[in-house]
């Protein structure tokens, strides 16, 4: 089964989404708690000291007021951003706000009491922002906060000489500070280690879920295959067996034309069975035999005409072909013919009787980044357009899987084994090309199949091994 590339990206998106959702809900809760606590503490202090501070208008008061406002503002804006789903900045501001609050309290204490054992012990408070930093925003903020905390504790201890009173020994100050730094970094590392293992667990969960979904999908496809094979094979078997039974029981009393008719029915049923089995089993054959092949110059018109004579031998269907002159590709003539057979067959099967089917082939140049390349590689683009029922756009990718048919078509009486498009894709990609289907899913507007294959020059007789895939559609520029 083909694994779509975007599933790995989708896995990562899910992990990020889960993480972000968790962070945002934590940010709102924590934001409210901290704001309330800070507001009460701040407001309470102002209220308790109001007469003294207002009248004094000291630097202490100014600092207190200023830092307090900043603290509350940071927490407030952080909370607001959490509600607005900006987790990164919400996390930064909330952590910043709480650090500011700690700083403010410690500065006020130092002002009144100087640097003492209490302040030194309280340096350990800066471990709290570490935990917050991780849960609210992640690893980057965790390390930023650890560095900031280390610097701030140093600032508090060593940058207040004017207020330093000799109540503690330098040795004690240093060792307390160092212990705090050590604690901060040990906690940071532990949180970091837990974060890594948590992410790994999430990834494993994500890929397990994905594997489970794929297994379910495979199961569904197997079910569909069995149902489909059941139905497609049993009806012709009934006709075949029944005809033989009837002939066996009554051939002697039948007229010659009756006998003929029964033989013809039996034969047709046998052929239908054969064709159906062949299309199923041949997929395996094609997968294996198409692995080793030699590239030659293939005339697109010839392959198309050969296919048309198989699919529409009596020219009953309105198929209009506009094939540019000199349309040659590097590939295998048999492969290209099979692709035409499958796509023309689909166009005929899924369109009303008189609906037009157009086939175009044109040469396009690939744009390349190399300025020295005088002859940019070219592709032949083949477009087959019908005016049939169309395909719902979201179901188009499914059709390239083996044995998948739309539910709509399974319920109809249009025969099919679900391997046509899978085979086309297999063969196209073997030849180094790409195949796409465009459809609005609207009956009447139909479907367009677009195939691009490496173009060749008619006068390139030597065989060439196809090594590169022309899968990058973004580099393609029409050379018209």
């Amino acid at each position: 089964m083909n694994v779509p590339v975007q599933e790995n990206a989708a896995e990562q998106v899910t992990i990020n989404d889960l993480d972000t959702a968790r962070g945002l809900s934590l940010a709102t809760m924590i934001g409210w708690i901290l704001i309330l606590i800070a507001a009460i503490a701040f407001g309470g202090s102002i209220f308790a000291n109001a007469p003294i501070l207002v009248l004094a208008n000291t630097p202490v008061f100014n600092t207190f007021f200023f830092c307090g406002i900043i603290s509350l503002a940071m927490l407030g804006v952080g909370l607001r951003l959490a509600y607005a789903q900006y987790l990164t900045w919400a996390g930064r501001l909330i952590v910043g706000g709480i650090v500011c609050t700690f700083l403010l309290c410690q500065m006020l204490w130092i002002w009144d009491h100087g640097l003492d054992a209490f302040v030194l012990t309280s340096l350990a408070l800066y471990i709290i922002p570490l935990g917050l930093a991780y849960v609210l925003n992640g690893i980057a903020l965790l390390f930023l906060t650890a560095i900031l905390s280390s610097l701030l504790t140093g600032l508090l201890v060593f940058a207040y000489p004017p207020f330093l009173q000799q109540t503690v020994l330098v040795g004690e100050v240093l060792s307390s500070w160092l212990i705090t730094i050590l604690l901060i970094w040990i906690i940071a590392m532990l949180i970091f280690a837990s974060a890594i293992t948590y992410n790994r667990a999430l990834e494993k969960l994500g890929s397990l879920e994905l594997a489970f979904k794929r297994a379910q999908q495979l199961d569904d496809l197997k079910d569909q295959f069995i149902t489909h094979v059941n139905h497609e094979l049993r009806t012709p078997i009934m006709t075949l067996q029944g005809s033989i039974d009837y002939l066996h029981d009554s051939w002697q009393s039948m007229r010659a034309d009756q006998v003929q008719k029964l033989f013809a029915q039996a034969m047709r049923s046998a052929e239908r069975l054969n064709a159906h089995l062949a299309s199923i089993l041949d997929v395996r054959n094609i997968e294996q035999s198409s692995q080793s092949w030699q590239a030659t110059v293939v005339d697109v018109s010839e392959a198309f005409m050969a296919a048309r004579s198989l699919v529409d031998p009596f020219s009953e269907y309105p198929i209009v072909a506009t094939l540019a002159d000199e349309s040659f590709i590097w590939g295998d003539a048999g492969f290209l013919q099979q692709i035409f057979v499958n796509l023309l067959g689909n166009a005929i099967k899924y369109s009303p009787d008189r609906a037009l089917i157009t086939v175009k082939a044109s040469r396009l140049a690939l744009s390349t980044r190399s300025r020295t390349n005088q002859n940019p590689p070219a592709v032949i683009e083949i477009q087959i357009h019908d005016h049939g029922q169309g395909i719902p756009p979201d179901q188009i990718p499914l059709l390239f899987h083996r044995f998948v048919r739309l539910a709509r078509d399974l319920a109809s009486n249009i025969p099919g084994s679900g391997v046509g498009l899978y085979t086309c894709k297999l063969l196209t990609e073997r030849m180094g090309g790409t195949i796409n289907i465009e459809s609005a899913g609207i009956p009447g507007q139909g479907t367009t199949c677009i195939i691009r294959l490496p173009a060749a020059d008619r006068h390139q007789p030597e065989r060439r091994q196809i090594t590169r895939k022309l899968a990058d559609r973004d580099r393609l520029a029409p050379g018209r």
Partner: protein
Amino acid sequence: MSTARVLIVEDDTDLREFLLAALPHYGGFQVTCAADGIQGLIQAVEAQPDCMVIDVKMPGLDGYQLVRALRGDPATATIPLIILTALAQDRDRFTGMASGADRFAQKPIRPRELADIILAVMQIDEQARHTRLQLLLDDEEPQGGETQIGEMGV
């Protein structure tokens, strides 16, 4: 006794033509055909066959929908119906019987066996058909889509 008339509703052309030719030989019936569900419904109402054999997978009106439509109309509610299908898992049998059919036959089935089933269904159901018709006439409005009382062959 006049010849029983059997209506076959089957979208596969070869199978339809084969049954048209072979069934009269094995069961002595008069056989007519319809190529899809809508045609089958029309012919059932017009001709009132003595039995119908209905294929499940048909475009447009599928076999189960046809059975429900026939059961919903008093004119056709008592016609013995045989569902013919390639699907054979338990849930498909259940769907078949729950839709109101009398009998469930799985493809491929030999013409002789199918003829025997048709004969059996027509005979055994005589009593049940009268009962069913009586119940329908007693009801104010017959409900289409519900399981009908009657002989359920397996």
